């Protein structure tokens, strides 16, 4: 009988996703939308119920007919009016769940009646029960309600580990921020602390950038467009796009034509400037992190892992500050928008009795950066390490940093490529050095350095003079294998220190199991004999005990005969072996 499908749902404040385990792999179910469906419900002009993107589209025009962020009202007595009907938060949530259920049924090709749903760790019993009720209204039996940080830990395969672990989950989404610390002991996940701000997220960063652009227009064009809805909407879109671009690039030029009939905007924003704008907001999240650690009675040193969840964690400043505060490189290998849903999908798969392997994540195992003049341990130092692509970053990855020339008419700049994490670049592994001949320019001229790292370990770098556009390009291959500690090389090196002891330079022989032909040119077996030996290995487990010894002995003798280049003996022994094998039933 086919197993009854169970789906995993991340019922979020802004967006929701559904995941299902196909062939032991959790997959986010998409519908022309990367699988991310706005948690939004409405009634259109024709009285039709609309859910998701369509409802989100009309929210600005018809807020009275649209419900957003219902999750904030779960477990309360709030009533929503849509058309001529009143609905509870559970009923509105049920409409979202029902849409996700239908999406899953289309993908699976059959009815779905069971689900695992995630909720924030801080949800009360009443809110959890309301979520369960929403599932029931949607026609879903909610097998489990799991905490969002638990789902994130599941996605990263943390719940399956044997040793005890303390994990911090930093979740910065579009409109909410949560930080949780979980303890995983023998597969059991316990939330030690959870705090946050449910009115802080990526939209605040967009607004900060829009405010800057409006100021820029006031300053440079003498116009105030704050009250022009069309201009404001265009600026918001441009700001959102620039924010995303600044995660990879160091400079972004925002250009909008005809913001007003005779006003065009062209404004460059650097990552430093953007970080200055959003700095106070990110600092607020760091205070929450400290509070969570205090609530959990843990020091940062006891954390084993930091997981980043939510699209806004792609901003490099988040990783950098967390890394500085906690002294541990945060993990963002799994798409932060989908991480919780994938964890819910994994739990759903477990409810179906499937053994789900942890997600395969393509991340860089090393940090790649360069060196520059800076401050190290309170003194000026010419070889400060500047990381560009940090360890655990999802691949392919692109990062750009900006540097300044130190003197007027600086003739050249050495570009060193380092692999490692030490603040002193000289303590890391240098994997490339290039000289960039510079144009004549005053001190402080900007040079951008861009690293592109792909899945195959190919690191492409480009250095560019910002003012002239002059570039230098280089490609480094196999950067993942340039660990500087090649095992065989090291073994030989150490082995050389122990004359007469060649144990270090040889692989330990395999023990146990039926003999296998020795490797090397001396042990090349004729195909017929190799076939009989293969057959013997296959049949050995089926052989009666009294035959097993004979078979093994014959196999060894045959191999020996082959090594001694005695084909006649090997053939005769092979015939004997074949006789025995004939009488072993498969």
């Amino acid at each position, binding site marked *: 009988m086919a197993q009854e499908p169970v789906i995993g749902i991340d019922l979020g404040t802004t967006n929701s996703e559904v995941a299902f385990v196909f062939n032991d792999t959790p997959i986010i179910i998409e519908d022309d939308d990367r699988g991310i469906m706005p948690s939004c419900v409405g009634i259109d002009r024709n009285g039709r119920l*609309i859910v998701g993107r369509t409802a989100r589209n009309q929210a600005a*025009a018809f807020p009275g007919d649209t419900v957003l962020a219902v999750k904030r009202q779960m477990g309360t007595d709030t009533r929503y009016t849509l058309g001529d009907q009143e609905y509870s938060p559970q009923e509105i949530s049920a409409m979202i769940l029902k849409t996700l259920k239908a999406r899953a049924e289309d993908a699976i090709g059959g009815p779905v009646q069971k689900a695992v749903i995630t909720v924030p760790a801080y949800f009360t019993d009443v809110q959890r029960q309301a979520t369960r009720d929403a599932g029931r209204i949607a026609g879903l039996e909610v097998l489990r309600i799991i905490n969002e940080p638990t789902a994130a830990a599941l996605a990263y395969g943390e719940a399956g580990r044997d040793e005890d672990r303390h994990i911090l989950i930093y979740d910065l989404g579009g409109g909410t921020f949560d930080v949780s610390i979980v303890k995983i002991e023998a597969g059991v996940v316990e939330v030690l602390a959870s705090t946050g701000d449910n009115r802080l997220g990526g939209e605040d960063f967009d607004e900060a950038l829009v405010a800057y652009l409006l100021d820029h227009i006031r300053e440079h064009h003498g116009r105030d467009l704050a009250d022009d*809805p069309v201009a404001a*909407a265009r600026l918001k*879109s441009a700001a959102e796009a620039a924010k995303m671009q600044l995660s990879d690039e160091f400079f972004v030029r925002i250009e909008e034509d005809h913001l007003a009939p005779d006003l065009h905007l062209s404004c460059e924003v650097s990552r430093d400037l953007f970080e200055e704008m959003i700095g106070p907001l990110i600092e607020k999240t760091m205070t929450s992190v400290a509070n969570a650690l205090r609530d959990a009675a843990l020091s940062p040193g006891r954390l084993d892992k930091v997981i980043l969840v939510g699209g806004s964690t792609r901003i490099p400043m988040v990783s950098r500050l967390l890394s500085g505060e906690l002294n541990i490189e945060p993990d963002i290998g799994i798409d932060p928008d989908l991480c919780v849903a994938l964890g819910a999908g994994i739990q759903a798969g477990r409810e179906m009795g499937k053994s789900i392997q942890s997600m395969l994540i393509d991340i860089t195992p090393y940090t790649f950066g360069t060196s520059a003049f800076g401050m190290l341990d309170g003194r000026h130092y010419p070889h400060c390490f500047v990381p560009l692509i940090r360890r655990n970053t999802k691949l392919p990855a692109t990062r750009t940093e900006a540097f300044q020339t130190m003197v007027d008419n600086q003739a050249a700049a050495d570009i060193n490529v380092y692999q490692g994490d030490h603040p002193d670049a000289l303590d890391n592994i240098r994997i490339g050095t290039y000289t960039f001949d510079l144009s004549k320019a005053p001190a402080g001229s900007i040079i951008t350095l861009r690293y592109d790292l792909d899945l195959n370990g190919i690191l492409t770098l480009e250095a560019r003079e910002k003012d002239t556009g002059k570039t230098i390009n280089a490609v480094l291959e196999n950067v993942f294998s340039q660990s500087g500690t090649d095992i065989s090389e090291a073994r030989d090196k150490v082995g050389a220190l122990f004359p007469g002891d060649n144990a270090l330079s040889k692989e330990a022989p395999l023990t146990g199991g039926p003999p296998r032909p020795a490797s090397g040119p001396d042990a090349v077996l004729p195909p017929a004999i190799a076939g009989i030996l293969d057959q013997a290995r296959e049949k050995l487990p089926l052989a009666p005990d009294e035959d097993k010894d004979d078979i093994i002995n014959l196999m060894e003798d045959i191999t020996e005969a082959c090594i001694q280049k005695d084909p006649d003996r090997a053939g005769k022994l092979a015939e004997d072996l074949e*006789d025995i094998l*004939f009488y072993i039933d498969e």
Partner: protein
Amino acid sequence: MSPGNIAAKTGAWFHRAVILRLLNLIHTASGRALRNRLDMEWKTRALADFSDWLDGLDQVPPEFLPQDPADQSETDNRSVPKDTGSLDGPDLYTLLTEFISLKKQVQIQTREQSRNLQGLKDFNTFAGEGRQILDDLARQVSRMGAMKDKLREETTADILQAFLDIRDSLARGTAARTRVTAPFVRQKKMHALLDGYQIALNKFDQALLRLETTPIPATGQPFDPDTMTAVDTCHVPDMPQGVVTQEISGGFMRRDKVLRHARVVVNTPGKEN
């Protein structure tokens, strides 16, 4: 003939004779059992008959009388007996030799048969694997075809998206013509410039049409959440409610799918523009 041979032959003859007689008796007894009501007379008669027969065995059968030396040398050479139809069979050594030879032949044949069977099995496995590979290949080719189509669609859509922004700029520039004022002497040049803009825009739209991409009509149309995104509202008293008053960026359909939603301002009551 050696004494051993005589004893063996006598033993064999005796055994065969006894077995035949017993079989006969068993047969007779079976018939009696089936009839079930035969009187006891037959028993007495059978016993007497068997006793007589045993008595008669005191005489040595003629075959076991001493033979002439020619016969003996023949036996010593352990050749195959001339008369195999008689009560004495072939000598055991010959039998053993033939049996070993037969066993060897059977072994050889068995091995050959085993090899042939294994070969057949391998061939069947290979054929099965081949079929599997061909099936997989067919599936992969089909999947690759679908993926290729999907990838082409997605790539085209991505490229189109980038160009749609440029079209927006052209459209905004053209729309600005109505608001541009210039001294009378430069108006002609200005209009020529803007006409050029309009021609460029038309050519752009024709190129989009060739890629089965068409603009979504928005301004003056009722707001449609399936194809439009409302970014703001305004109140235009002489326009119906819920109608798009302004398009911020154009929407486009590619075949029956929305390539990009139109971003619009919608007329709603109460909010004066």
